[in-house]
């Protein structure tokens, strides 16, 4: 956990620095105000992030050094892949949903993931993919009929 704290603290500090030096000054808004300048609260939030994350990094670095533990311990490629593929899977389907209706893409999204996770009973795959899609189709048709969509 100490190593995780060190690296996450470093990451949050970097984001906070980016916010303070570029994002908030450029995109934080401006103009005359009587009370609170538009950028003030966001700047305070970013300073809070920076101060806490830096303190966390510092404390973790001291503990790691004292315990003689390495600062870098790369995870195995297998582990990394297992953490990454679900994100890529969902992202790929978001791209597909952008091009095709969700009711077309949904059965493939559900069935594909079921197969990847080891489900081989065709009736389970078919029903799990079909039922939520049919529900969505019914809801969309109902919303269109009452004029919401």
């Amino acid at each position, binding site marked *: *956990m100490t190593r*995780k*704290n060190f690296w*996450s603290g470093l990451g*949050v500090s970097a984001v*906070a620095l980016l*916010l303070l030096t570029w*994002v*908030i000054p450029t*995109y*934080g*808004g*401006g*103009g005359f*105000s*009587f*009370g*609170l300048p*538009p*950028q003030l*609260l*966001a700047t*305070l*939030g*970013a300073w*809070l*992030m*920076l101060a*806490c*994350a830096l*303190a*966390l990094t510092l*404390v973790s670095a001291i*503990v790691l050094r004292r315990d003689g533990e390495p600062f870098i311990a790369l995870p195995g490629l297998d582990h990394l892949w*297992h*953490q990454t593929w*679900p*994100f890529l899977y*969902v*992202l790929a*389907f*978001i791209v597909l*949903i*952008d091009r095709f209706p969700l009711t077309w893409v*949904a059965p493939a*999204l*559900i069935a594909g*993931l*079921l197969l990847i*996770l*080891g*489900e081989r009973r065709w009736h*389970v795959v078919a029903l*799990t993919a079909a039922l*939520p*899609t049919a529900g*969505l189709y019914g809801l*969309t048709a109902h*919303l269109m009929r009452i004029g919401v*969509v």
Partner: protein
Amino acid sequence: MIGFDAILGSFAAAFHYESIAVILGGVLLGYIVGVIPGLNRAVAIAIAIPLTFYMSAYAAIAFLIGLSKGTAAGSAVSAILLNTPGEPSSAATCLDGYPMASSGKPRKALKVGLLASVIGDLLATLLLIAVAIPFASVALKFGPYELAAILVFALVFIAGMAGGSFLKGLAAGGMGIVLGTVGLDPETGAMRLTFGYAELMEGVPILPLVIGTLALAEMFVQLDEYRRNKGASVIKLGHQADDDLSYREFKTTLPTIFRSTGVGAFVGALPGLGPSVGAFMAYGLAKRGDKDPESFGKGNPKGIAAAESADNAVIPASYIPLFGLGIPGSVSAALLVGAFMIHGIQVGPLMLRDHPEMLFTLFSGMIVASLLMLAVGWYGLRIFAKVTSVPPHIVIPVVIFLCLAGIQVQGYGTFGLITVFVFALFGYFLKKFDYSFVTFLVAFIVTPMLEMNLRQSIILSGGEIGILLERPIALVFVIATLLMALHLGWSGWRHRARRRATTNHAD
């Protein structure tokens, strides 16, 4: 102020069959979600919010409250039969529930859990009704100085109490504040951190944020855990003669239930602590106070009663700061604020002034939900026991689909889908690196309110900080915030030093 007739009218509205149907739907769905391991209250509320868009404000909130209560009661089923808590807060229930079920008394264990849940929930709901209204009446007299000071105090308190590192809690709060300022500045009309996207003009849309950080991120975590932990054995409900709860047995658990409800209600009323703290604290107290503490952990019904009554008492009690001060003290309360916002209602003391009928109808709806919990749990015992065997590899794809469908149905389009994905990455980071999610969400939700009160305070005082000396309540909260920050920092440092000393000693 609302009259007695209007209060009676609110109760009549809550007991109307349409209202009961909505709450029953929420409780039933909540129960099912609670029973399925891996799905939790926050995930359930996040994916249910889109369903409530087409309901009236009362129906939507009553449905979500029913859902929230249902998950708390339902999570005990998987804790008892599967030794896997449906909610983290039911982990304490596993300690005695699973051994009792393993020893051939699963029905008895489930009934103790159910009755304790319902009593805890009902008593805490009554406490909420008794406390929140006087609380809100006092809070209505607060000005912007007091409210700004209370909001800052609540954020620091939640960051310190939400578990894990205080520094990480505060950093998460900082992230919430930055994201909470996105959108049009209410005074100057300047675009803040929108990067030219018109979709961000009214702020970061709450639905993609909530679905991404809570539901989709949780599914990514579940996928990671599924790889390591496939399959668990479920205890089936049988027909053993001694496997039923007698009134005499139940009576022995009642004092424990009342005590633990008190503990749960106290913990729930303090923002940020959450039901896990309440359940374990009540379990520990019940064990310490019992004549036979050795029997705890081996299937003692008092252990189940303590954990479940406290767990369920936390939920209604956590709405005390919400309805009293407008401060959400837990993730589910923060999600309710989001739902209120979607329906154009500002939750907090102003509700007592602007929508008193709504407030009282909600309170009566909560009582209806408690009673429905008992009926649903009692008669659905066998069905819910079967639901525990739904494997996670079927649940995960369906929930991922529901997350994307919720965004699409609301018309957020590709922007919404990308936003939900970005927030899923962000939520995954928060979970994996143990940054306090509740602090982030509460900071995000209360930032507009904090900003408004700070702005009014600065304008009214002309930037003069000495005005605080004339506002004793605000001054007390400012001092309390500073003392709390110092105390939490100091106790964190001492805790680390003690741990280091123990490690050195062991070496």
